[in-house]
């Protein structure tokens, strides 16, 4: 046993454990998609579950294709990839296909539809990883933030414009994790984020008061230059005041999503309805669940988008707490393996790609499941390896390809 563990930990070894976890997750995903969409009269080759299998097969081709390359290639290709993905996001402004809610997220190439924001995640990850492989950030040198913020803000705004708030926040999560890995401490990150937190906290006087106290304490203990401390405090206050105006300028469906998060019953037909029904489905699953294919809530079509965003509710209803626990365990193990690559290799590009890639997965996993459990707003973020959808499968499998590649050849750069 110990020998096996040692073998698995050893670098330059192909990570069979991760391979197994991903395959297991995919298997669960196909079963759930099948179960959620069993009410269909389509021939088998047109069903969601079969299409999902083809997406997975295609994804593995990509992942193993990446394994054949060298990390150096991705290091060189980082900025071009970033530019290309930006072009994709700009292109959408002109030739995008409109979908529901008036959002424009897809480019249609006849038989195939591409979601450029998915590939922008990869482009941004590579570019930021390369930049931070030679640079560090520090609160004392605000200029060190200029380039990363520019790298971040362009795709962020383009995605926000679609509008796709939740995907835009994926970019934000990558950036945050990169800051932490490039020199900031938790306290510094808190100070950096505090103006943003003010924007949210200002809706409640008590929360905002608590936040300002925490900021003051942190500033005092960190002993930043006076001008910087004043700047951060000012930004906090300004952020609070700006919050009202921002709130007024939000898109209708964005605001309703936030409001129904606070009080789902406000919109029992739309977002709130989904949250209520999702919790009902999960809650009624109990410890063991109702059994495969026995989910009355899902089968009665109480749940909309059950094969994409709400796939976890299907699992929760049919396999209960045990099923959910096992799934979360698998996800956690996967993240341990992928974040762990940062321990094996010292090259910062390799480290950044793996940490950032893991963060993309983490953000999707947490936000999606928290949404189905009713503790996060209803966003359109899918669950990695489980939710139905081609573009996102490709994104995830590119990341899996990176993890496999970096683990085996991370020294060779």
């Amino acid at each position: 046993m110990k020998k096996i563990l040692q073998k698995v930990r050893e670098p330059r070894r192909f990570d069979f454990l991760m391979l197994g976890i991903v395959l297991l997750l995919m298997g669960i995903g196909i079963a759930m998609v099948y179960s959620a969409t069993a009410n269909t009269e389509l021939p088998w080759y047109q069903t969601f579950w079969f299409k999902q299998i083809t997406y997975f097969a295609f994804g593995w081709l990509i992942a193993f294709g990446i394994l054949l390359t060298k990390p150096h290639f991705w290091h060189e290709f980082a900025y071009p990839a970033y530019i290309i993905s930006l072009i994709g996001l700009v292109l959408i402004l002109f030739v995008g296909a409109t979908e529901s809610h008036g959002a424009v997220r897809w480019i249609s190439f006849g038989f195939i539809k591409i979601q450029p924001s998915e590939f922008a995640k990869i482009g941004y990850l590579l570019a930021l990883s390369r930049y931070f492989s030679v640079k560090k950030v520090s609160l004392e040198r605000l200029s060190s933030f200029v380039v990363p913020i520019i790298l971040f803000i362009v795709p962020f705004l383009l995605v926000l414009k679609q509008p796709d708030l939740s995907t835009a926040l994926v970019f934000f999560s990558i950036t945050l994790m990169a800051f932490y890995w490039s020199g900031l401490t938790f306290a510094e990150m808190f100070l950096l984020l505090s103006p943003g937190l003010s924007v949210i906290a200002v809706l409640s006087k008590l929360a905002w008061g608590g936040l300002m106290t925490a900021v003051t304490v942190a500033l005092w203990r960190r002993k930043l230059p006076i001008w910087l401390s004043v700047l951060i405090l000012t930004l906090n206050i300004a952020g609070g005041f700006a919050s009202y105006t921002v709130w007024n300028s939000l898109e209708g469906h964005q605001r309703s999503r936030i409001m129904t998060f606070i009080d789902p019953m406000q919109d029992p037909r739309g977002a709130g309805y989904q949250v209520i029904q999702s919790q009902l489905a999960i809650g009624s699953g109990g410890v063991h669940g109702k059994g495969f294919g026995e989910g009355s809530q899902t089968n009665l079509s109480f749940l909309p988008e059950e094969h994409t965003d709400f796939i976890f509710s299907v699992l929760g209803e049919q396999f209960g707490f045990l099923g959910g626990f096992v799934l979360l365990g698998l996800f956690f193990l996967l993240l341990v393996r992928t974040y762990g690559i940062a321990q094996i290799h010292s090259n910062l590009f390799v480290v950044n790609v793996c940490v950032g890639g893991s963060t993309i997965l983490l953000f999707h996993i947490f936000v999606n499941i928290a949404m189905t459990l009713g503790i996060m707003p209803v966003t359109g973020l899918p669950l990695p390896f489980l939710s139905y959808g081609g573009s996102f499968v490709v994104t995830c499998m590119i990341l899996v390809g990176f993890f496999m590649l970096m683990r085996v050849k991370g020294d060779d750069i």
Partner: protein
Amino acid sequence: MPQNLNHSTADIGEQQERNLRVFYTLSAVFFLFLILIFRLFWLQVVKYEDYFRRSEENRIRKTIVTAERGYIYDKNGQILVRNRPSYNISILPYQVDNRDSVYNRLMRVLDTNGQNVFDPALLEWAFERGKYQRFRPLRILEDATDMQVAFIEERSELFPGVVSYVESRRDYPYGTMASHALGYTGEISEQQLKDSVYIEQGYALGDRLGQKGLEKEYEHYFRGHDGVKYVEVNAYGREIGLVEEMQYEDAVAGHNIHTTLDWNLQKVAEDAVPDTVKGAVVVLNPQNGEILAMLSSPRINPNIFSLNKKALKKSWAEVALDSARPLNNRAIQGTYPPGSIFKFITAAAGLESEVIDSYTRFPKPCTGGFYFGRRYQRCWLGAGHGYTNVVSALRESCNVFFYQCGLELGMDKINDLARKYGLGRRLGVDLPGEKQGLLMDSVTYNKRFERYGWKWSRGQILNLAIGQGELVTPLQIASFFGAMAYGKGLYRPHLVKEVRSSDGELIKMYPITKISEAKLRAENQDIILHSMEEVVSGVRGTGRRAQIRGVKVGAKTGSAENPQGDKTHAWFAAVAPLESPTISVAVLLENTGSGAATAGPIAAKILQAYFSEKNDKTGTNP
């Protein structure tokens, strides 16, 4: 780890830092996952009983409330198309506790003739399917009668899981009248389901939508917006009532379409053309393009598309396999040679390009025919018309005059004028499937007959100048003839005047649009109008049947030669009053001989009805 053995202390420090960061990061991840686990535990273990009870009890079902489809009215507000309620009886498999007993009970339900109400095959299919699709209602009786519905509803404890749904179906109270213009609705086809245009508009399996005619053209207005409601269902799956605290979205009924059709005229036209004759009638107002009546024969009864599947299948087979092709709207899709009516185009082109004037006589008189080289081309009157000018040639429809006129003009000038009057192109009528017809010149001729090895020769002009060889639709004839008499342009023929919401609010008004400046010089216009009048009132006029007391009527007959070699197609075009025409009629009857004898009386009846209606109106208003 062996690789790290040679590393310096700085590297080891860096390694430790990375280890630390991984540790902190994973701790944060663990913390996030802990939140999820706690929440999961809360929902599924602590609150399980509560949620389970609610999921069992909470039989709230989200149901789609289908929007009522908009109506179609005629110009006077008479309802032409409306909806009727239709009941479906279905089973909800997951609520059928004992399949066999429910099946047997259903099979024991007999109608007054002692026949099974439920089709055993369909029942078997539904119960078999229900094993896999337990939560979807499966239809076992379509378009059920009130009695049948009441019978099932009153015995709900005997038939657990058997439920009835009401839906609305299209009703055409006048049956076959104007059926081609109105069109029909039908269930969305498999082909349409694959079409992204329909998918993006939110159509799904089982939806009904306009498939032909106005129903198709204005589908987006008729459709309305489906609503959503949350209903509570009892243990037998029946709806108990609306769930109060859940908001619902009312269905928004589709918009109503107000057409330009004059139902009285339509009726006159329908009565005049028997269903055994293939043909078409178009009546329109040349001053604005409003179509007053449109008919194509043989007709179809659009009500068959609202029947249940079994009945529809039978009726559909009859209609679709009929060699008379009743599904075609001959008024806009039937293309025929225009015959002698085209002589007005040739004449007008001759006058406008000053090849002829009102006094012109061509060197060769009509001797019952005409030698072109060594070919002898006949005129319809064997005795011949002698020397004619343009007016008498039009009046008596002399071919020889127009043979020579055409030869001097050439096809380009003739076709240019024809296009101005809307021939050889789509007029843009608001119905799907309009044909554009065909104008012929050397280029199109050589292209069209390339595979036969035929080559254009000047001799073709002879036939083309008298309207044998072009293809036109009855709609084009009515438009062109009306526009030529009106003399102030060609207007887009249309059927819809305005769209109104179900509350009567004006949604859209369709403005009249001029397609082209179809005008002649004043002196030529006079000659044309005089000729049109002469056809009807002249002693030797071919259209004398269209005479109406007190109204100056212009007309032209035509006989389209039929390549199949049967009797010719009969044409008749009429327009009145010539001083300021408000009605233009085109009648086409397939294989019935000459236009004057068969098509003429039909046009006359329509004109008669139109002007007596008009006089009635003015008469009551002194």
